[in-house]
């Protein structure tokens, strides 16, 4: 399955590589940051063609395992503030009751209710966060990813209560003080802006899978194009019973769960 998925990636990326041969990459000296890798999509993307999505098979996800969380937070320089008030998170585990508060608990077994579930930004197709943002700093990209433009965010925090999933975190203070093991390949954020999961848009342009998907030892996470009927994720969605978070709100999340 993994291989199929890679093929899907390669299919999408092969064209870009030939086009992009002239672009700068590789030869950047060791000190430089955010190394210029050959972009996979180096042509202007077609809006609406791709819609990235994720499927989380919670049956495979091991209780107590934090590998995806650690990988994501490391890769994106997410600061590790200890106190709950200032906590910043892109992906985290939470109880059934908190992840699916509006699901019918009567239908869930004791076992399910005692498990924890991954939560992250759902990259909603109909996203209230982008709608409320006065500057368009939180915006929907051409590929369905809801991205935050950290150059533009004014820190008004209207997006935070607008998101029904608590996906956004605010930098109450300078995040650089709390980054444990900084990486040079990705920028940090600064004091006063909001941040959240970016579906690894930084890795996608290099033709990589999201960090959480790649690192999961159980392969519980599947990532792909929801608009492509032949993609793994679509095939799995069609052959499994899945659910989304708070579907009744009409936000159309792009993250699905197999319970």
């Amino acid at each position, binding site marked *: 399955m993994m291989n199929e998925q890679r093929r899907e990636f390669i299919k999408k990326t092969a064209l870009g590589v030939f086009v992009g041969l002239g672009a700068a990459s590789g030869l950047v000296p060791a000190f430089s940051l955010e190394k210029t890798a050959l972009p996979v999509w180096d042509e202007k993307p077609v809006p609406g063609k791709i819609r990235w999505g994720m499927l989380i098979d919670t049956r495979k996800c091991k209780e107590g395992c934090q590998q995806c969380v650690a990988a994501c937070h490391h890769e994106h320089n997410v600061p590790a503030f200890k106190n709950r008030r200032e906590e910043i998170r892109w992906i985290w585990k*939470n109880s059934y009751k908190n992840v699916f508060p509006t699901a019918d608990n009567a239908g869930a077994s004791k076992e399910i209710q005692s498990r924890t579930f991954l939560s992250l930004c759902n990259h909603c197709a109909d996203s209230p966060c982008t709608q409320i943002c*006065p500057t368009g700093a939180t915006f929907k990209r051409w590929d369905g990813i809801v991205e935050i433009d950290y150059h533009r965010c004014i820190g008004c925090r209207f997006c935070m209560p607008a998101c029904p999933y*608590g996906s956004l975190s605010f930098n*109450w*203070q300078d995040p650089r003080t709390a980054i444990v093991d900084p990486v040079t390949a990705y920028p940090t954020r600064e*004091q006063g*802006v909001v941040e959240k999961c970016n579906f690894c848009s930084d890795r996608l342009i290099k033709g990589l899978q999201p960090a959480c998907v790649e690192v999961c030892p159980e392969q519980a996470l599947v990532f792909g194009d929801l608009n492509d009927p032949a993609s793994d994720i679509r095939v799995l969605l069609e052959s499994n019973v899945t659910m989304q978070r708070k579907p009744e709100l009409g936000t159309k999340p792009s993250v699905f769960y197999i319970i």
Partner: protein
Amino acid sequence: MIEKALKGNRSYWIWTLFLGALVASGLSAYYQQRWLGLTVTGMGREASWGLYTAQFTFLVGVAASAVMVTLLHQKELTKTVIIALFMAASATLMSILFAVADMGKPDRLLNIIFYTNPRSLVFWDLLFLSGYLATTLTAGWAMLGAEKKGVPPPAWVKSLLNLSIPLAVGIFFATAFLYGGLPDLSLWVTGVLALRFIASAFAAGMALLILVTLIVKKTKGLDTGKEAREKLAMVATYAGVANVLLLGVQFFTTFYGNAPLLWFSLIAGVVSVAILLIPASRKSQQWLVAACTALVLSVWVDKSAGLLIGGELFPAPLGSIVTYAPTSTEMFVVAGIWSFGSLLFTALLKVVVAVKAEHRG
């Protein structure tokens, strides 16, 4: 005309210096916040809005409700119009300052204009507020200037006043539905919230205006007229009744009942409305002062406490109720902005009083 604000008696200067000192301490607190980040406030991940937002909501309501004086367009109110306009301008300025104080990156404020998102109610709200500030301040100043010269105000003042009406309506709707648009609130709660925002705004705004005219009368001997106050009291009463009813409804349908401060708000609201409804007590100045003070307090507490309990007006997305307690830094900033607005309003009122006295004399 502004030089008239620089002449005053002892108590005037004590009052201005007092406000000035508060502004200075607010500035130093704000400097700390700019430097260290909003971490110096009591806000956090789940309670991401706090005192600043509460003041913003309260002041936006007060500002926009002043349009009622223009709207009623009655003879008794002609003397009140300028005061109402200046109150609107000061309150609008304060509300904008509170919005800015709440931002993580106020240096990027103009991004709202550079990169407008027309779908965002936040954008419309701030746009209307700026427009309202400009129209009320200009119109008030022009009317005052005309009065000084003893001529009727120029014709464009009328158009400005007319323009301020749709702007105020826009402010009401944008603010009410800004909070109403948060997805975790049911349609029912949303509707009640929006209506109650408007009702409470008129109640508090008119009550505050009555208090201001009474203060001006007492300290400066400038009386805008008992009939004017009665008109305003009438509006405040209607709005107060509606607000109390809607607040009561919320006590039954949500867990407002768990917050002691909101009980205070409800009781103060009921008592003040009761006083205003009884003709005998409405006509007595002492009772009027008491009722108006209670009404303003009731609404202010409700706007603040609605946030303090965190779980209702702005529910934490994951259903947990997070307690939020403002820090002293936050309170100094709040006091500073209030003082700045009051300082401006005092100076403007001073000019009004001086001009009117000159005219009379």
